């Protein structure tokens, strides 16, 4: 109960819960789409999903400032790759929020003569770019961790023991691949925050990929990926040490 209240007190926590519910509706709608007995339920799910989406758009109205502030913070990071990736990601997120706010104004009728489709595509594009930058940062952090691990003498001993322990097919054919995967999994295990962030960003990536037509999946895949990434986001809020820093 205390965890639930801590989560709902933060507006980000509430937003993640609504997002999880929204994508759960999308997924359920896709799974029930061919079931003729559930047509009424599908209509209800559609209505719920669009209401949650509309409500979340209103709640996102102040987030441009948060993104700008985050960009101002990340520009002072010492590591140049991290600085670049995160600042560009935050700027793209800010631009995404601006497009999202304009789309909100259009949906309530405050602005009339704008091209909704163009602004929606632009919003997806900026969101996609920010996700790509976040993934680049994840890959950079993972590669740093792997290099660090590989240099560690104790770890090298463990790696050699692992390669010697199973002298069967694949490892003999591609011992480098096996070693690479071993180092990768060990690095991810030692730093669960990076692993969580990578999985979250990969799941999130399917949403703009589908919207922009780069990799057409279907609404079921989009719903599932959105649900997983929202749940992972909720986990990082409940356990702050699972949140990647910076």
């Amino acid at each position, binding site marked *: *109960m205390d965890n639930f209240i801590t989560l*709902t007190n933060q507006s980000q926590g509430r937003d993640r819960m609504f997002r999880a519910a929204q994508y759960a509706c999308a997924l359920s709608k896709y799974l029930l789409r061919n079931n003729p007995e559930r047509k009424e339920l599908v*209509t209800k799910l559609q209505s*719920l999903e669009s209401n949650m989406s509309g*409500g979340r758009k209103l*709640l996102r109205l102040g987030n441009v400032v948060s993104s700008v502030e985050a960009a101002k913070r990340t520009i002072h990071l010492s590591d140049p790759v991290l600085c670049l990736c995160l600042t560009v990601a935050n700027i793209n997120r800010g631009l995404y929020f601006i497009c999202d706010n304009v789309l909100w104004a259009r949906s309530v009728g405050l602005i009339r003569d704008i091209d909704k489709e163009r602004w929606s595509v632009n919003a997806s594009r900026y969101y996609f770019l920010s996700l790509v930058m976040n993934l680049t940062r994840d890959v950079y952090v993972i590669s740093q961790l792997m290099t660090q691990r590989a240099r560690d003498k104790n770890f090298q001993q463990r790696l050699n023991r692992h390669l010697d322990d199973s002298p069967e097919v694949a490892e003999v054919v591609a011992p480098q691949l096996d070693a690479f995967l071993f180092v990768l999994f060990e690095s991810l295990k030692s730093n669960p925050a990076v692993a969580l962030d990578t999985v979250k960003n990969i799941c999130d990536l399917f949403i703009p990929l589908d919207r922009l037509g780069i990799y057409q999946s279907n609404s079921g895949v989009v719903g599932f990926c959105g649900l997983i990434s929202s749940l992972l986001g909720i986990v990082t809020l409940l356990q702050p040490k699972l949140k990647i820093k910076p």
Partner: protein
Amino acid sequence: MDSWVRFNATSQAKERLIRAAQYACTLLGYTLQKGGAGAELLKLISQLEAHMSLTRKMMYLGSSAESLEAAKRAVHLSDSVLRLCLTVAHLNKAMYFACDNVLWAGKTGLLPQLDQYKWSHRSFRYYLFALILNLTRDAYEIHLLMEREARSHTPKSTWSSSSPPSPYHIMNEDPSLPATSSPAAPAPVNLPKTVITIVMTRLRRQLHMLVIVLRSNPPLLLDLLKNSCDIFIPLERLGIYPTGPGFVGACGLASSVLSILTIIHPWLKLKP
């Protein structure tokens, strides 16, 4: 900028902002209607207001649990009046949120056969009870503070300096007046006037003390003003004291702004 980010991070702050905007729309709609604005503009404002109201209802989806937790905390207060007022107020607020959640389900189409009017009335009734209890708590706190203020002033002042002498007192001390055999026989025509003077002076003194107490206690003043503004909303919606959408909008906007002030300056929040 940084303070906006911190402010925006709590969902309560966001909800208060949206509430302020919603009641501003109500007020704006009423003013524009009186001013003879076009039907399209009025429709836009009422659509915006409905959208904000629905979003706020969506934000209330977990709030029953929070109110129940607050009620659990209030049960442990030492002062019995505060304990009663606050616990029952939080419980009523939890019921209000529960009814509001049902209304949200009805409005979004999850429960299409819902009697929205009945549930809306229910929710406003619980909200009214919660506000009455909050106002009772405010009155109790004011009463305690005024008693304390009166006690801290009586050793310094005497009867003659803080209140006008009683008519019997004047009659007995004034040598120019003819001595009367019985002191309890003042002229009947002076009695009502002097009684009124006594009552007026006492009232003025109480009011003066009230002003002192409220001025030295800004959180209490803010809470009192907020609850007084808020109470007109359910009174109007339940038809007990119909004022009108303009007045309701103004009261709602004022109470939301005061609430936002208590979030920005946490020392202005009345504790417990």
